[in-house]
């Protein structure tokens, strides 16, 4: 049954009163009746009461039932009204498509930006890796006293495995790259792990199995490997008969014992391993220098553990710290002992990277929040405009009896509908935005795979959408329902002009929008400037026209002598290729992301002195000429610096000035960190950048001739062409082919690319800031536009009067533009102040640029003012088109 009116609500008190009078009426009526039949009034009343029975019980019962009935009725009323409100709201929104679309799009932009960033944060910092009972897993990581995160050596790991009881299982992990020699040779990347690894992470390989204990005992006769599902599908077409057969890795026969399930993509994000192999099998694979497994100095392992059910994390931490203390008992200086960090695995990002990423993400997440604030200000402005238009409608509804609460509920329903639609559109937008982030940021595939929004993100997004829509829609609505009824009903235009208070609110919104967009623009400008500056930094060599080809000999079955000779021969072959200006071979490249450090001591220092931590590069003799690294004193290496001649080194200016301040370093001797023989300094190279273009401190570095300090199986062939990189690429490829046609080339990149890669994070940040800054600017422009347009519409009458009194159109237009520019000016002042405050926080992320770079501030401000002026001018022009006669007649 549809009811158009509502029963008045009954309170508990009212219900009780009504039952009371109902009963009283009954007793009275029955008494009267009995009196008529001839009883005395007293006897009649007594009988009536007796006939009634237990009145207290009836009263209790009736009150109870009535209260239930009342609650039911209220619920029904409420649902009925809600349905009415919904239908009404949908009708209203349909009738105002411009308003609806503007609000939905504006909110959706803000929500989409937030969802995309939240989603990325969620994936990187909160999504646990695909393993069983992840809350029992932890990383054990050493840290130096100044907070650097480090790695373990195999003897360290053995100590932890033997001397702790808090962990049910511990396994070391190391990234290794191997050559698969069967068929077309390929470089594949995976992990060396302990034999208990798969039980530890709770993954059961299928088809096949995990490792048996004997497969991870030193000298095992049967090396085994487990392949990842992705690699197995890619390389073997998902053929289960591969399991149980032998494949050739780095020249050694290894049996494939299993394949991991498809869902298992590793415990670390961004890895996508191809295989897992027990540590005991690794010596057969001849990777890297000798002693990788036994030497206490080769720290290259990370350690993962599953806590035993009896141990707490704190106990485990304490126990590990005791073992760590024993490990480093020999270090006399307590400041040089490392501490140990035991943290639960919360996502595919390890604690060290987490620590680095968290503040960056905090900063990144602030940006879309600011965009959302700008968007909300716009939405509020749109609602204000609309409430002005709707004032009369609301007044009419109040006049015919709608309560203020009911009107507010009605408006709330509209806001909620808009919020929900905007949320849905926002989620769609976040997909698009995530796509952009994936492309700009070149994210690893396993991260991309988990970037799908999950329930948490979805809930938060809708929470934001609903509360933003409601809050910013309701504030102006409340103001509208508070207004007096009569003036709004009066049929003159004046009531339609926004009130003074509301006008001030709108202006405040516009000012804050301008301020925030300016802050975003300036920050974006600072980042872009910093990026450009970083790319023009002199790395200390000339990266143009040069390519580096990475090769690895470990899979070729070479003898150690053959490996040691390889680099010198390759250098000569490459240099002889057509179009080549110079060629050299190096173990590692500067700015490549990997580096090797040793402690350098002077000849005069005590043998156990700490020495200077120095980057060590092993290179062939043409290295300095090929990458054009200036040698300022002495000489570079020559062919006579060979295994039988006295050992020599080139140091950089920084190391020379630390070891021998004010002295001539040439001819001075340092102790070889590897075998304590003496090495003579024959040259000094100019300082350069080694780890990052933005490195603040000048690092020490030294170069050793590979003829005296052999490189190992892995190297980089560097070729400089006379013109362009195409010749260099062809020459590098031809040279490697000439040396060994079966040698796979892992990667070939220009040195310019290496340098660009070192700033890829900054580039992604700058791109994101620029995009969000532009979005905020567009929203702010839209806000200004809306305010001026609304002003023009509301003051048509006034404009008409002025123009009929002789005002020129240009005066009128100018007045409106001025209004817009005044708001912009105030916003600019606030925005500059805001940027100054924010950029102080950013100073550490900015390279080569002060946080108050005047040029950036000025150009961002000019851009903003220009856009603002345009946004004010377009609607103001409409004022000039007002026909005085029509304007005066309107309303």
């Amino acid at each position, binding site marked *: 049954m549809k009811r158009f009116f509502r029963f008045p609500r009954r309170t508990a008190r009212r219900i009780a009163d*009504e*039952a009371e*009078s*109902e*009963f009283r*009426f*009954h007793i*009275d*009526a*029955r008494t*009267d*009746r009995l009196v008529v039949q001839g009883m005395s009034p007293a006897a009649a009343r007594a009988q009536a009461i007796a*006939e*009634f*029975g*237990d*009145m207290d*019980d*009836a009263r209790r*019962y*009736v009150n109870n*039932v*009535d209260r*239930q*009935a009342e609650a*039911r009725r209220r619920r029904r009323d409420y649902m009925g009204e809600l349905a009415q409100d919904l239908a009404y709201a949908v009708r209203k929104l349909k009738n105002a498509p411009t308003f609806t679309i503007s609000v939905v799009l504006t909110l959706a932009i803000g929500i989409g930006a937030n969802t995309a960033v939240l989603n990325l944060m969620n994936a990187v910092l909160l999504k646990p890796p695909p393993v069983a009972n992840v809350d029992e897993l932890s990383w054990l990581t050493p840290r130096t006293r100044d907070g650097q995160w480090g790695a373990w050596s195999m003897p360290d790991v053995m100590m932890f495995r033997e001397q702790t009881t808090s962990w049910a299982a511990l396994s070391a992990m190391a990234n290794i790259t191997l050559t698969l020699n069967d068929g077309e040779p390929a470089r594949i990347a995976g992990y060396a792990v302990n034999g208990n690894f798969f039980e530890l992470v709770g993954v059961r390989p299928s088809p096949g199995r995990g490792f048996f204990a004997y497969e991870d005992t030193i000298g095992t006769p049967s090396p085994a490997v487990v392949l990842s599902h992705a690699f197995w599908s890619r390389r073997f077409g998902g053929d289960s008969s591969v399991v149980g057969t032998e494949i050739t890795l780095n020249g050694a026969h290894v049996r494939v014992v299993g394949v991991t399930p498809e869902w298992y993509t590793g415990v670390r994000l961004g890895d996508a391993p191809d295989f897992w192999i027990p540590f005991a099998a690794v010596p057969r694979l001849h990777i890297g220098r000798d002693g990788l497994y036994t030497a206490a100095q080769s720290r290259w392992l990370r350690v993962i553990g599953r806590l035993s059910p009896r141990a707490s994390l704190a106990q485990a931490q304490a126990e590990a710290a005791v073992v760590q203390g024993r490990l480093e008992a020999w270090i006399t200086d307590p400041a040089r002992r490392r501490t140990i960090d035991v943290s639960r695995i919360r996502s595919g990002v390890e604690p060290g990277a987490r620590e680095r990423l968290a503040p960056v993400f905090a900063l990144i997440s602030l940006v879309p929040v600011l965009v959302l604030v700008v968007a909300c200000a716009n939405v509020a402005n749109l609602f204000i405009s609309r409430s002005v238009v709707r004032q009369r409608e609301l007044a009419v509804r109040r006049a015919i009896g709608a309560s203020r609460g009911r009107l507010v509920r009605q408006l709330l329903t509209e806001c909620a509908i808009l919020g929900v639609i905007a949320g849905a559109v926002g989620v769609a937008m976040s997909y698009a935005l995530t796509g952009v982030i994936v492309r700009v940021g070149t994210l690893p595939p396993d991260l991309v795979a988990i970037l799908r929004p999950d329930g948490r993100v979805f809930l938060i997004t809708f929470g934001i959408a609903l509360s933003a829509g409601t809050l910013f829609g309701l504030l102006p609505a409340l103001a509208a329902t508070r207004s007096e009824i009569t003036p709004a009903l009066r049929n003159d235009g004046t009531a339609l002009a926004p009130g003074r208070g509301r006008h001030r609110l709108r202006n405040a919104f516009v000012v804050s929008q301008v301020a925030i967009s300016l802050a975003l623009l300036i920050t974006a400008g600072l980042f872009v400037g910093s990026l450009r500056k970083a790319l023009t930094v002199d790395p200390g060599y000339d990266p143009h026209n040069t390519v580096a080809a990475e090769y690895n000999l470990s899979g070729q079955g070479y003898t150690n002598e053959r490996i040691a000779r390889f680099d010198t021969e390759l250098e000569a072959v490459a240099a002889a290729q057509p179009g080549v200006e110079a060629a050299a071979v190096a173990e590692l490249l500067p700015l490549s992301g990997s580096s090797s450090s040793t402690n350098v001591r002077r000849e005069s220092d005590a043998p156990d002195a700490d020495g200077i931590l120095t980057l060590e590069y092993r290179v062939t003799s043409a290295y300095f000429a090929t990458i054009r690294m200036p040698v300022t004193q002495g000489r570079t290496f020559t062919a006579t610096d060979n295994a039988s001649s006295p050992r020599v080194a080139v140091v950089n200016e920084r190391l020379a000035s630390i070891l021998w301040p004010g002295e001539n370093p040439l001819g001075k001797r340092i102790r070889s960190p590897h075998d304590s023989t003496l090495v003579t300094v024959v040259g000094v190279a100019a300082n350069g950048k080694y780890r990052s273009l933005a490195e603040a401190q000048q690092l020490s570095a030294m170069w050793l001739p590979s003829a005296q300090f052999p490189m190992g199986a892995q190297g980089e062939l560097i070729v400089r062409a006379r013109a362009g990189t195409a010749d260099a690429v062809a020459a590098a490829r031809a040279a490697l082919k000439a040396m060994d046609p079966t040698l796979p080339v892992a990667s070939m990149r220009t040195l310019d690319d290496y340098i660009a890669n070192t700033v890829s994070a900054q580039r992604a940040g700058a791109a994101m800031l620029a995009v969000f800054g532009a979005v905020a600017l567009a929203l702010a422009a839209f806000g200004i536009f809306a305010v001026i347009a609304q002003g023009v519409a509301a003051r048509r009458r006034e404009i008409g009067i002025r123009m009929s009194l002789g005002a020129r159109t240009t005066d009128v237009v100018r007045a409106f533009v001025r209004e817009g520019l005044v708001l912009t000016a105030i916003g600019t002042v606030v925005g500059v102040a805001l940027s100054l405050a924010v950029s102080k926080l950013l100073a550490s992320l900015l390279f080569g640029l002060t946080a108050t770079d005047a040029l950036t501030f000025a150009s961002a401000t000019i851009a903003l003012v220009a856009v603002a002026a345009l946004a004010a001018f377009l609607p103001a022009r409409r004022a000039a088109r007002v026909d005085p006669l029509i304007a005066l007649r309107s309303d």
Partner: protein
Amino acid sequence: MARDSNGPLQGTLDVLVLRALSLQPSHGYGVSEWIRTRTGGSIVIEDAALYKALHRLERDGAVVAEWGASDNNRKARFYRLTPAGRRLLRAEEAAWHDYVAAVARVLAPA
């Protein structure tokens, strides 16, 4: 509604009340007098139970109540059958007749 259960008697009371109201809207006292007259006093119903039934039927939507003036112009609560109440009455009547027939068959001499 286990709390309200008075066995078959409650159903009896409901059907009597619905029947009384099907003739014309009435206040509780009117229903009470009607039952007294119609049964010639052979079924004695406590008024307390009657009012419980009325309010329960109101809650369940079988009747609606409104305040009005009684014959001698006093304020009284009048109950009126709703269409749902009318349907309920028909169903209850049918059930009652079935019940009576069943009991009659049991009691009939073999």
